């Protein structure tokens, strides 16, 4: 009897390891050597690797089903269009959006945010109005607003985060209460620096109670949390394909239908029009109104297998357990390293995703990243395209490691031990 609980724990552990190994199997990029060492890829918040099914569809479509979509009557074009639209339907299901008209394909989250900012600031704001931007945003959710506000003579306000990286709902309420000129709130579901799941549904509720529209950058959110735009009730939600197992060059803009319909097009060109003449042009209905030019239809189609994979791993209890174990191990081990500060540590650890930004006293993050690279460990250093929040923690930038479900506990422990070794050398 004494052995049984232990055996059970071992069994569960073995099962988890087996599942992670099975996941690793379908990612060719993971099975390579870097500088003669097995690759440990811990830069997933920037780009994830692609599973075989995605890669195969990418090759198959590029080599066989290669014809411009929505344009021609021939079979290849129709097949490519079907695959493209199947990608859209997969996104709709994934986000729990009401209709396909609410899913716009862009080249990435950045392009989606530029589209929203430009179109929304122009059409839904008067000169006295303001955009409230969270301090912890990626440059892609800051600069498009600055550009649009500059062009149309509007202004930008900042919603600061707390010392530990969390958004204070009280502070948000106070800010909105104090300034009735705020019309739009731009905030991420999960910051790419802090890795904390923000209470987006609550944020939306508070903002809506003041008549403020909410734009959510979900680039990290789609990877680490379940997203239902229906439940969240946000007005806009965007993400990129390359951060969620799909190819580069595809992004998604979800917008509430009534809003998208009331917004002017962002780019003009082929396929976004109804009729064109020099006396005036009318536009195509949603979603094509916002999809000018030939889209990356191959990458869009690849979103289907990518999102299906993402859903499968997210819903797997053992993968969830594995992710929790990585988070707990990382927090415990990192806190033991002298002079190391984790940037973004929520009071409730269940809100922490496996994205860890850190500073280490007396050591430059770029030195650490360079040495870890020589050990086959890919990490990120610098400003992470989020200078405002990073510079709050350090003027040298930060070191960031971000995990995917295919990263093992062994890789996590290897990173920790190599980090200690390198830090000691550099100090």
């Amino acid at each position: 009897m004494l052995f049984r609980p232990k055996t059970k724990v071992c069994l569960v552990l073995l099962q988890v390891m087996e599942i992670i190994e099975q996941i690793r199997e379908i990612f060719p990029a993971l099975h390579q050597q870097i500088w003669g060492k097995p690759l440990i890829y811990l830069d997933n918040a920037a780009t994830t690797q692609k599973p075989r099914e995605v890669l195969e569809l990418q090759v198959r479509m590029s080599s066989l089903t290669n014809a411009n979509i929505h344009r021609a009557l021939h079979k290849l074009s129709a097949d490519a269009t079907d695959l493209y639209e199947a990608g859209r339907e997969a996104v709709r299901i994934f986000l729990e959006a009401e209709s396909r008209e609410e899913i716009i394909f862009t080249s990435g989250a950045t392009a989606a945010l530029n589209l929203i900012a430009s179109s929304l600031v122009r059409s839904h704001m008067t000169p006295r109005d303001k955009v409230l931007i969270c301090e912890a945003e990626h440059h892609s959710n800051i600069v498009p607003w600055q550009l649009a506000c500059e062009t149309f003579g509007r202004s930008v306000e900042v919603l600061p985060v707390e010392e530990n990286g969390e958004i204070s709902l009280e502070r948000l309420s106070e800010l909105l209460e104090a300034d009735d000129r705020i019309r739009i709130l731009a905030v991420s579901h999960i910051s790419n620096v802090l890795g904390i799941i923000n209470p987006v549904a609550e944020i939306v509720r508070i903002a809506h109670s003041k008549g403020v529209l909410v734009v959510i950058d979900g680039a990290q959110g789609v990877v680490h949390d379940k997203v239902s735009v229906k439940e969240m009730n946000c007005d806009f939600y965007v993400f990129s394909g390359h951060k969620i197992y799909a190819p580069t060059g595809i992004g998604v803009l979800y917008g509430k239908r009534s809003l998208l319909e009331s917004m002017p097009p962002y780019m003009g060109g082929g396929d976004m029009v109804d009729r064109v003449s020099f006396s005036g042009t009318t536009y195509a209905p949603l979603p094509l109104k916002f999809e000018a030019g030939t889209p990356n239809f191959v990458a869009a189609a690849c979103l289907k297998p990518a999102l299906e994979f993402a859903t499968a791993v997210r819903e797997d209890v053992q993968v969830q357990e594995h992710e929790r174990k990585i988070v707990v191990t990382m927090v415990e081990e990192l806190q033991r390293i002298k002079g190391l500060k984790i940037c973004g540590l929520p009071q409730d650890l269940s809100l922490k995703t496996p994205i860890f930004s850190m500073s280490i006293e007396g050591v430059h993050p770029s030195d650490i990243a360079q040495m870890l690279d020589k050990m086959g460990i890919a990490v990120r250093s610098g400003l992470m395209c989020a200078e405002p929040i990073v510079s709050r923690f350090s003027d040298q930038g930060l070191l960031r490691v971000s995990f995917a479900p295919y990263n093992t506990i062994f890789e996590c422990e290897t990173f920790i031990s190599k980090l200690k070794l390198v830090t000691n050398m550099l100090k």
Partner: protein
Amino acid sequence: MIEIDQIRSIGEIEGEIVSEFSLFDEWLDKYEYLIELGKELESINESDKTDDNLIRGCQSRVWLVCRNDGGRLWFGADSDAVITKGIISLLLKVYNGQKYDDIIASDFSFIEKIGLRENLSPTRANGLLSMIKQIKAYALAYKEKEAQQ
């Protein structure tokens, strides 16, 4: 300060560094040496760490100052990253006190010979290439200035 008649040619110093680095079998030893050089490198004056002297395009901050002493250039540089400082130390060893024409003619190939270029390519944003460009830019600027006089 080194006496001018003690300054050896760029090629000679480069050769010395290349043979020094050839002693390292392991990349880790190479980096350990660079870190050591970085830690030993004399800091420049805080007052010289200005935006004007900052080299753009580096993830770590690098400041470079240059002084012309009768046609020979003397550099001072600093960084907040220690490996970068190690590389700076090598560059200063080679180029300090050299004539600007020699610096302009130099191809900086010793970086490749000691196996640093592969790790420190321009895409790595570590500023090695920017540093080299800036050293050459100083040499060219002083040459032009003299030609105008």
